[in-house]
């Protein structure tokens, strides 16, 4: 039996801003269909790491190999910008904390979902619209809102629309940056349910950044705890959260319980 290659293999990722470090010496592997949560307080470097992983930011050192659909693992940092951007709009998704960073607010919901399809050459209006419609239904947005602009949507709807926009090209890997941040608790719960359903249905791999351990517990298989730019503890989510080894993790976990 051949060993499965990781979808994403990060080695010694470090990012410095001048002499200040954003994140340091981070290595891990992500396998297909896996959800990894990166947790930590704000300023712990988790967003910097996410941006480095998604090549939105170039790290100071380190490498990431990504397993293409052709079964070949390539170093992301050595790809041309054209290749990287193609990857970003087809095989990847990125869900921003603030939906307006990931949506075109002045363009209809249908076009928001359809944009990626058009970017990869889909030229049939009817089928683009049909696909958009299906995706809107899938993320529980009523079909008659297809021609409305996201600025008329509620926060939760915007976030669901952003997810649909990302998933329309059937990406294999989705990056999420605090996707439930800024939402009411009940709206959060509904969104998490939706994400969980999509992960199961589509076999998505996800790297999610969150400060909310409850989100990590619900969604992720594995967890990495970051502090001051370094991963201080990592493992299966349930193990880490039920039996944290590091004092900092213990503090995080206990503060959740108290809160």
């Amino acid at each position, binding site marked *: 039996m051949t060993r499965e290659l990781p979808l994403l293999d990060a080695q010694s990722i470090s990012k410095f*801003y*001048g002499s200040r470090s954003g994140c340091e010496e981070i290595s891990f592997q992500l396998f297909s269909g896996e959800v990894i949560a990166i947790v930590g307080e704000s300023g712990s470097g988790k967003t910097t790491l996410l941006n480095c992983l998604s090549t939105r930011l170039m790290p100071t050192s380190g490498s990431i190999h990504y397993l293409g659909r052709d079964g070949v693992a390539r170093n992301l940092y050595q790809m041309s910008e054209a290749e990287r951007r193609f990857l970003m709009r087809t095989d990847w998704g990125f869900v921003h904390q603030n939906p307006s960073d990931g949506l075109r607010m002045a363009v209809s919901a249908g076009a928001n979902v359809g944009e990626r399809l058009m970017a990869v050459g889909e030229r049939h209006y009817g089928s683009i619209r049909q696909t958009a419609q299906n995706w809107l239904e899938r993320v529980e947005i009523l079909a008659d809102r297809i021609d409305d602009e996201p600025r008329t949507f509620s926060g939760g709807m915007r976030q669901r629309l952003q997810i649909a926009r990302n998933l329309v090209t059937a990406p294999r890997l989705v990056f999420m940056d605090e996707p439930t941040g800024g939402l009411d608790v009940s709206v959060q719960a509904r969104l998490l349910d939706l994400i969980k359903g999509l992960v199961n249905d589509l076999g998505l791999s996800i790297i999610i950044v969150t400060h909310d351990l409850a989100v990590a517990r619900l969604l992720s298989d594995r967890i990495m705890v970051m502090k001051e730019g370094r991963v201080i503890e990592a493992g299966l989510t349930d193990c880490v959260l039920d039996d944290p080894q590091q004092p900092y993790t213990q503090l995080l976990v206990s503060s959740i319980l108290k809160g």
Partner: protein
Amino acid sequence: MYVAVKGGERAIANAHKLLAERRRGKRSVAALGLEQIVEQLSLAVDRVMNEGSLYDRHLAALAIKQARGDLIEAIFLLRAYRTTLPKLGYSTPVKTENMLIERRISATYKDLPGGQILGPTFDYTHRLLDPALAGEEAVFSLEEGPISPNNFVRVSDILAQEGLIEEDGRLNGAKPNDITKEPLDFPMGRDTRLQALARGDEGFLLALGYSTQRGYARTHPFAGEIRIGEVEVEYFIPELGYVVIIGRIQITECQMVNQFSGSAKVPPQFTRGYGLVFGQSERKAMSVALCDRALRANELGEDIVAPAQDEEFVIAHSDNVQATGFVEHLKLPHYVDFQSELDLVRTMRRDFEKAKDAVRSTACGLHEKQEKQKTGEVSSER
């Protein structure tokens, strides 16, 4: 009727005749001489030289006269003339430290070597209209002392001795870019940016500079030094192998001193915003310096949050010759594109009416049904 939109050569010729007539105005009033403009409207002349990018007082005065005092039009005239001139070479950098000072002030030091020299400034005048200027002016003459030949040390050099201010910027290549010869390319070097700012519209840059003071990209500026005076223009002649002085021009230089907290590599120190313009154009030089500093946000690792920091926004819109041309081109006929839009709006209105009719007839249908149930009658009206 059909002719109304087609101007034709005669209409243009007539319009130009009328323009010449209006420019001259009442014949009983003596015509303005260029010397009068050069001498008595000298700050207008300075502005036209600056934004027209050509140091020639008489041509600038001619442009002002020809443009009926419309300074942007005058700037345009001068630019269009300048573009046809052969470009022979570049002077060596002017040495503003050797300036023959007419005005020199610093807001950062109470006193400094060479002292504060107010010079011919509107500052501290009370802005009261002076009826005495309305008629013939009484002739008085000022006993002008000789302009001090002292080499006034520059305020930025005083700060630099202590290492409190960053060094003067250095050029990336051997010679500066030339925006009159090379296309503007974003992002641009500071040399290119300063050139563009130097010919930028005074009003536009003033407003942007002002916006930085009001908190849109605040940089805590101090007017380190403003100096106005004459500098020599030197030119290196390769055939001779040495530098010759080819003339003397009046310029205004402004060095803004701005706060900067430092970064990983650089200790906290003051940074500079720089403005250099032709003639006596203090407002312009200060505005340029504020904008220059704001536009260095990227270089200094500051967040870009305000219009004045946005290089594409500022530089692409600062040239008033470009701006006035494009705004005014809306006067040109656009009836071909307008025709397309007319057509489209008509089609869309037809669709809209059709849709409304459809809705109305369904609604009427319902209404009628209800009526019928009530009265047992059938209405014939829609």
